């Protein structure tokens, strides 16, 4: 699976304002509403579900990256977005480091395979330190979009 298969381009944010875990998740979910990927009426329920998942264990997987996510019946295909915090946010990450790079995913409950393949693509690309660094220093959403496109065209992701 490629980034372009699930990242809502209009929802990409290169400078999140929030400085808390809850705030970043809310800001990203709102950006998906603004991009038309999720309905405004589902915002609260989706944010709540993502926070509930975080309570089970942080999705801050190290290297300054977090993958907050949830299943939600309101979506019929996997939707996601990318955001960067230049200051970094305390996400109770597994390695204790602040998180600068966020991939938020909302997937239909009956499609666990798609969710796994999105995680696979994200983790495969993030093993490339240069890619991580370039994303974190992106000046605008277009920079991020181009980096994702480049990764898609180089990747062997299935």
């Amino acid at each position: 699976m490629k980034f372009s298969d699930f990242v809502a381009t209009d929802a990409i944010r290169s400078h999140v304002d929030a400085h808390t875990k809850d705030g970043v998740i809310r800001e990203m979910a709102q950006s998906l509403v603004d991009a038309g990927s999720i309905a405004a009426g589902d915002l609260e329920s989706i944010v709540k579900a993502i926070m509930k998942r975080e309570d089970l264990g942080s999705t801050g997987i190290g290297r300054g990256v977090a993958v907050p996510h949830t299943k939600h019946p309101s979506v019929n295909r996997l939707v996601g977005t990318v955001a960067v915090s230049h200051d970094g946010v305390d996400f109770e990450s597994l390695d204790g480091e602040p998180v600068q790079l966020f991939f938020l995913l909302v997937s239909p409950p009956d499609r666990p395979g798609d969710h796994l393949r999105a995680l696979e693509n994200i983790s495969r690309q993030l093993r490339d330190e240069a890619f991580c660094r370039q994303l974190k220093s992106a000046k605008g959403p277009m920079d991020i979009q181009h980096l994702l496109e480049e990764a898609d065209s180089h990747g062997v992701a299935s």
Partner: protein
Amino acid sequence: MNPVVTRENEARLIEIRDSMSEQVVSREVVVGMSQGLHARPADQLAREARKWQSRIELLSDSQRVDGKSILDVLTLAAEAGTRLVVEATGPDAREALEAIGSLFDRNFNEQERNDGR
């Protein structure tokens, strides 16, 4: 005739000794969770693997990845029912393999179960 320990023989003996202190053990595991090997179990797995001195690797049909790295484990995208081989190499390989294997046997303590269980 006395066997002669040549330089070549000696080198081979040392190699055999080294490979004996470096235990390699492996077993097959099955991903039993209906959601597959997703972020939470991948984290549990990497956390457990890092407790051991031995190298822990996971093998799928097409990949061999470092079990101590959550990013590596996630690149397996192992869905429910996927068979993997866990391979441990090092002084505590047996104990490490048992610990990792039991995580799979217990479905990583996920609450929900597959149909028919």
